[in-house]
């Protein structure tokens, strides 16, 4: 359809006799294609290629080892642990903020917005969203100080409350991961609030009015109207946050460097460390490839599951 030449209404002062073929739309895709090839496709393929070698990087000799790196990964406790930790981080980035954010968005939208005006709701929304625009490095530095054992802000509060055995938030292998999760919840809450509040604006207000007349309380309306109507948006929030959680890197590097006793390792940090600190490029490339495949599978799985549940609704 689009390939047909547009009918010419007015004859133009034609420089050439034959009508010029219009530039194909593919030409407009060319710059992106070249850039994408150079920055994403080729590097990813090369990364997979590297993963079959034992290589210290740079000019060092590269030895083909086949699948040896992958075999070693399977037996690497730290690597497995890093994936286990990712499950916790998904909880802290995708699950908890979405649940809290959903309740906050609904409260702001149909409670505070109505009782105290739209201004009050938008000021609160901005307060929740502020951490989201923070450079992750700033957030990391800020929290590494808040959680500092000796004179961090959190322990200062506890001390003034009379707590004598102050927790070592980032130095205790049993709680370091939870400390990072605390920061991530703080960081993440604004995202679902903003997305879901705007989703709520699309819900027909008459539905709420009808439900209210029928005597449905807030919780009832929340469950019967709010959640079902913005399900797609909730799902998008969960999907993007889950992918984000699996790729998480900066907070771990800045707060704990994977420690103590590798209790806060995450896959991306594992790759980084092998690439740039341990000079095990092939091994790092293998772990990065595994992470990419796992993220791809999880994302694909979530999309498939969503598509099926939409189908089931019809």
């Amino acid at each position, binding site marked *: 359809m*689009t390939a047909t030449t*547009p*009918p010419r209404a007015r004859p133009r002062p034609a420089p050439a006799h034959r009508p010029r073929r*219009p*530039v194909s*739309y*593919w030409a*407009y*895709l060319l*710059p*992106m294609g070249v850039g*994408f090839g150079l*920055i*994403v496709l080729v590097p*990813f393929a*090369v*990364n997979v290629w*590297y993963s079959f070698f034992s290589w210290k*990087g740079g000019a060092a000799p590269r030895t083909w080892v086949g699948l040896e790196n992958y075999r070693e990964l399977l037996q690497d406790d730290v690597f497995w642990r890093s994936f286990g930790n990712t499950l916790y981080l998904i909880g802290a980035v995708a699950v908890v903020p979405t649940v809290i954010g959903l309740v906050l968005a609904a*409260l702001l939208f149909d*409670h505070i917005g109505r009782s*105290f*005006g739209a201004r009050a709701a*938008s000021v*609160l*929304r*901005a307060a*929740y*969203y502020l951490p989201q*625009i*923070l*450079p*992750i490095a*700033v957030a*990391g*530095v*800020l929290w*590494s100080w808040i959680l500092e054992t000796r004179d961090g*802000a959190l322990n200062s*509060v506890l001390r*003034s409350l009379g707590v004598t055995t102050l927790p070592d938030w980032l130095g205790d292998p049993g709680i370091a991961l939870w400390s990072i999760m605390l920061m991530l919840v*703080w960081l993440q809450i*604004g*995202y679902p609030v*903003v*997305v879901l509040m*705007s*989703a709520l604006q699309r819900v027909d207000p008459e539905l709420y009015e009808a439900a209210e007349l029928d005597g449905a309380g807030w919780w009832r309306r929340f469950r019967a109207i709010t959640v079902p109507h913005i399900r*797609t948006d909730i799902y*998008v*929030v969960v999907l993007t946050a889950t*992918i984000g959680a699996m790729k998480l*890197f*900066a907070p771990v590097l800045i707060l704990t460097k994977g420690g103590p006793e590798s209790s806060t390792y995450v896959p991306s940090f594992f*790759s980084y460390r092998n*690439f740039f600190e341990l000079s095990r*490029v092939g091994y*790092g490339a293998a772990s990065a490839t595994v*992470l990419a495949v796992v993220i791809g599978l999880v*994302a694909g799985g979530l999309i498939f599951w969503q598509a099926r549940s939409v189908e089931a609704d019809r």
Partner: protein
Amino acid sequence: MTTTTAAAPVRRPDPAQRRNGRRRRSRDRRLSVALLGQRWLVLLLAVVVGVGMLLPFYLLVTNAFKSGADYSRRGPLALPAEWTLSAFERYLSSVDYPQLLANSVLIAGVVAVGGVVLAMLSAYALGIGRVRGRTWVVFVLLLATILPQEALIYPLFSGAQAVGLQNSVWSVVIIFVVLQAAFGTYLLSSVLGTFPHEMLEAARVDGANRWVLLTRIVTPIMRPTMSVLLVFFFVWTWNEFFIPMIMLITPKAQTIPIALAALKGQNTLDVTQLAAASLLSLLPTLVFFFLFQRTLTRGVTAGAVK
């Protein structure tokens, strides 16, 4: 917030509804008291959460203006005994802040403009041109968003070395123009898919070719969406951590957030200086946030839902 004070129409509940509510409530006074209490309780809850979210920012600001002695004597929670700029002076004398700022602005600015232009070109082919296999093209482009940067970094790192772009802001610019534009293409092409057809037909009848169509018809109409994307690309790129940290090694080439993380890594533990440095590192984004608060909240939803 400050940006919304001017002429923001405050939406009030429609009067009929309020009258109704009042009548019903007068019928049952006890219920009314309970409801009123509940209303304030909900507000209190929401405000408490809000204060909790802002608390770290409060700590950042107050401690940045303390002297080191004040901090060690009275701890992190007290207000400064005397507001001083000494922590800022120490930070500014230890780094070349104007250079860092210039690097950050250059990188984020070029990426924002370049990313939007590149995204618009390809979204035009996909959304208006409807090239065959466009669903697959979009799907492949989304790999840029899904793939972890770790799975690209080593080849990119050695590639930059091979072409002499190591430690150059341009390596970061090129990478992020493509990565951001890949996401932008996805967003813009889905918006362009619903572009009013009659307008395109009318222009074609007038003899507009595809380039004219893009620059004279489509782009002006898409300007609001593109500016949202521009703001987002700027903020995202400004805040990026992993790739700039790997690519930009010397302080001369670094961005503001990378220099901050490097300062923290030195383990000198001058807390007030760290607070001042953090504040200076988020100041530009904060200014941006207050200028574009609405754009940002509009944009995050566009990005999520489209």
